[in-house]
């Protein structure tokens, strides 16, 4: 399953708090309504992105999924800029 997105950010290998920081910087480059797809390998990023969406007023977490690429779990987050 894959959701539509406008931009992709690869933060595979990056550890807390980098996935959220990089994603935030990338979201700032989006236009309102656009969606960023984030690829991370940090398992903590799943709850981190949920927490970010809960606190931030300018984003919405449209979806999350886990893919397995070459035997490695990749956590995919879809972040929409709402403001």
């Amino acid at each position, binding site marked *: 399953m894959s959701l539509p997105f406008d931009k992709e950010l690869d933060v595979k290998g990056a550890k807390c708090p*980098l996935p959220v920081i990089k994603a935030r910087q990338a979201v700032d480059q989006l236009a309102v309504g656009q969606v960023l797809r984030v690829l991370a390998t940090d398992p903590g990023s799943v709850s981190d992105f949920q927490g970010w969406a809960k606190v931030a007023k300018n984003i919405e977490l449209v979806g999350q999924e886990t893919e397995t690429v070459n035997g490695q779990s990749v956590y995919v987050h879809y972040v929409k800029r709402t403001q």
Partner: protein
Amino acid sequence: MEVTVAEKKDERTEVVGFAGLHERIADLNERVQQLETRLTQIEKELPEDRVSIVVFSGDLDKVLPAFIIGTGAAAMGMKVSLFFTFWGLSALKKRRDLSGKGFLEKMFALMTPTGTEGLGVSKMNFFGIGARLLRTMMKRKEVASLEELAQMARDMGVRIIACQMSMDVLGVQKDELWDDVEVGGVAAFLADATKSKVTLFI
């Protein structure tokens, strides 16, 4: 009994009259204004989406979480204030300047780290070997270094305040610290802390 009923009736008819209406409107206007002032007062007292952290420690393993939480919160759209005091001041140093310092101040300056690179770990430091090992382990696991996090914090507009009183006691000069550091006292911290939803002492 009948008399009171009649009086009430009279009151009602009076309200419908122009003069009565004007009075009611003026009265309502005043009440709305009172409520609005009260609302702005309450809004002023509400906490913002802010995190305030006192960074008292000068250990690598403690300054690190301060910057992780700080950068994380900033990325989440929160405002962040880091208040560096006592041992924590060492982390903010860009250089060591012994000129103008008294004997004890010089000793302190020589025995405390200059900048984030010099910080030791709070346990098993073994004269800096422990800190180096931790940095190697972090690098291997691709965790951002303290220097990277500190730079990100500054780029994201995290407010970094150095405690004036500790600076005075330890003889730390403003020009020994990063250029963008603000200097403040307890009131500067408390002003932010009372507006914060999260306050930590590290």
